């Protein structure tokens, strides 16, 4: 039996996808090719009952109306995603969105997937966390649920402590150091409870007042909810993983970040893998694929944890070595979602592959390839240009002289 294989046919913008997940699965592709719908479908397939229970808990009841549920889960307008010839399979078991739109009767109803959505910045409006009920019908479930998790974490667990980053009992020094350096630049992330509202601010060294959310950089606004999600996934106190959670989906982890920041986020992804989570990313970042390519090559060429540490410029701490060791032992997959095409497996990421989809990494380095080719051509043309005779140059001053 195929393990962790999701097949979708003609569902919303997804034409044909047949994906077998690795320990880390990366999906790439232009906008509106169905990446997000695919990832949301993965969560629905694995967490059907947990999702229905969350809606019920918040008094959102669909009364068995599939369209109502699908609009509430995927987002308004997605009710028509399921068509006559649509098909859905998980590990060869046939399913349908209208069936999944009805609650099941399973005993084990716990969620297995933690989904960090692309719209995560909306979970911290003005630096204040948002709970499930503050969103509207038609806002994607993944955003509403992620927001509510972050809300509970900040308002309850961290609300009393005040300081969110750095946190000595969350993430080790190998991970905290690059976050501090590349994402917060030495500032502290704290909960400011002034005005009877718990609001996130950045404490910049030398400044009395905390920097409000609206004054943060775009990258800090994007990264902070992601960090909080990772705090939730990596509890302190010697607990390695959240109970029941097996999968972590992160949409566009690179959002708003400089490549140094992206590299830091990738370290956090490796930490999730080390802890045994299966991770699925969607991305438009070549840095993400650079990492996957490097790790695949390390695996193929007997690379070691030291190579991983060199790639990420990590020291020789035990935690860094553990991270590197885990990374070289994992299975990596990359899939390309393209418009009007079947989803293609480009896991090899071979720059010399016959398939342009693979050699150009799903279009992510297509422009770089073209740039190189065109520059080489222009360089050659420039070098072959006719050289003006010296006599012409010598004459010029005389002609302009009064």
């Amino acid at each position, binding site marked *: 039996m195929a393990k962790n294989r999701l097949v979708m046919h003609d569902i919303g913008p997804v034409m044909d996808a047949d994906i077998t997940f690795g320990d880390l699965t990366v999906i790439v592709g232009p906008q509106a090719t169905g990446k997000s719908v695919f990832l949301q479908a993965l969560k629905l397939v694995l967490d059907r009952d947990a999702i229905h229970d969350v809606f019920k808990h918040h008094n959102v009841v669909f009364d068995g109306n599939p369209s109502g549920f699908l609009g509430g889960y995927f987002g308004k307008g997605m009710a028509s995603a399921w068509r006559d010839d649509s098909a859905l399979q998980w590990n060869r078991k046939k399913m349908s969105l209208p069936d999944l739109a009805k609650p099941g009767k399973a005993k084990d109803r716990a969620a297995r997937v933690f989904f960090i959505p692309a719209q995560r910045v909306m979970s911290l409006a003005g630096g204040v966390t948002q709970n499930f009920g503050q969103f509207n019908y038609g806002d994607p479930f993944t955003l509403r649920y992620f927001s509510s998790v972050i809300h509970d974490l900040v308002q309850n667990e961290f609300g009393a402590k005040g300081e969110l980053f750095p946190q000595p009992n969350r993430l080790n020094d190998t991970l905290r150091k690059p976050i501090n350096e590349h994402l917060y630049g030495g500032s502290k992330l704290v909960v400011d409870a002034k005005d009877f509202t718990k609001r996130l601010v950045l404490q910049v060294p030398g400044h009395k007042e905390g920097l409000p959310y609206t004054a943060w950089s775009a990258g800090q606004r994007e990264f902070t909810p992601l960090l909080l999600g990772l705090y939730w996934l990596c509890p302190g106190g010697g607990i390695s993983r959240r109970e029941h959670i097996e999968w972590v989906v992160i949409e566009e982890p690179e959002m708003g970040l400089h490549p140094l920041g992206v590299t830091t986020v990738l370290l956090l992804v490796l930490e999730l893998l080390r802890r045994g989570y299966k991770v699925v990313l969607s991305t438009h970042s*070549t840095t993400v694929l*650079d990492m996957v*390519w490097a790790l695949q*090559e390390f695996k193929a060429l007997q690379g070691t944890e030291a190579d991983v540490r060199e790639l990420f410029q990590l020291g020789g701490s035990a935690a860094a070595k553990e991270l590197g060791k885990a990374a070289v032992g994992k299975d990596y997959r990359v899939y390309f979602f393209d418009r009007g095409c079947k989803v293609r497996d480009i896991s090899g990421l*071979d*720059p*010399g592959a*016959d398939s342009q989809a693979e050699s*150009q990494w799903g279009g992510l*380095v297509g422009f*770089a*390839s073209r*740039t*190189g*080719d065109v*520059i*080489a*051509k222009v*360089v*050659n*043309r420039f*070098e*072959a240009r006719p050289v003006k005779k010296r006599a012409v140059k010598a004459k010029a001053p005389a002609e302009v002289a009064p």
Partner: protein
Amino acid sequence: MKRGAVQASPTFKEAARKACVPMTAGKGAVKAQYRAAILTSKNVRVVGSVDMDTAYCAAEPNSARWDYGLGLGLGNGAEWVCWVEPHPASSTSQVAKILAKLDWLEAKLLQPAFADFAQLTRQAKLNQSLVYVWLYEGANRISANSREARALALRGVALPKRQVSF
């Protein structure tokens, strides 16, 4: 100049004779294992080839020598040269080796004996044809967005290819 236009330029054969580099008909000078990777359309023919590496092996044993020159021509008699270097692309460190070979080749093209080859090289550049081609077998680990790929482009060398078509 538009590709295909007739002009008074040297032939590949004449250029090889003046440079005292033995010419072989067609792709003959190219090692058999690489010939299949060099393809031509029905309009372009390989008029001859030279093995620069072998020609200078004894005289310059320690130099980073470029491998082959390929004479290409159209039916109207216009000819140009493409310089082909089969070389591993297994890591970005190979880029520096290719550029060292290119330095060697360009130094040769500045010598009076190579004036006709230089003219045929210029013709290739004007034709917007491939001038310097890095052929590889096995793994390619030169990513298009790497610093080394940009260094190649700035010297007029395209990214390594498994096959080249003219």
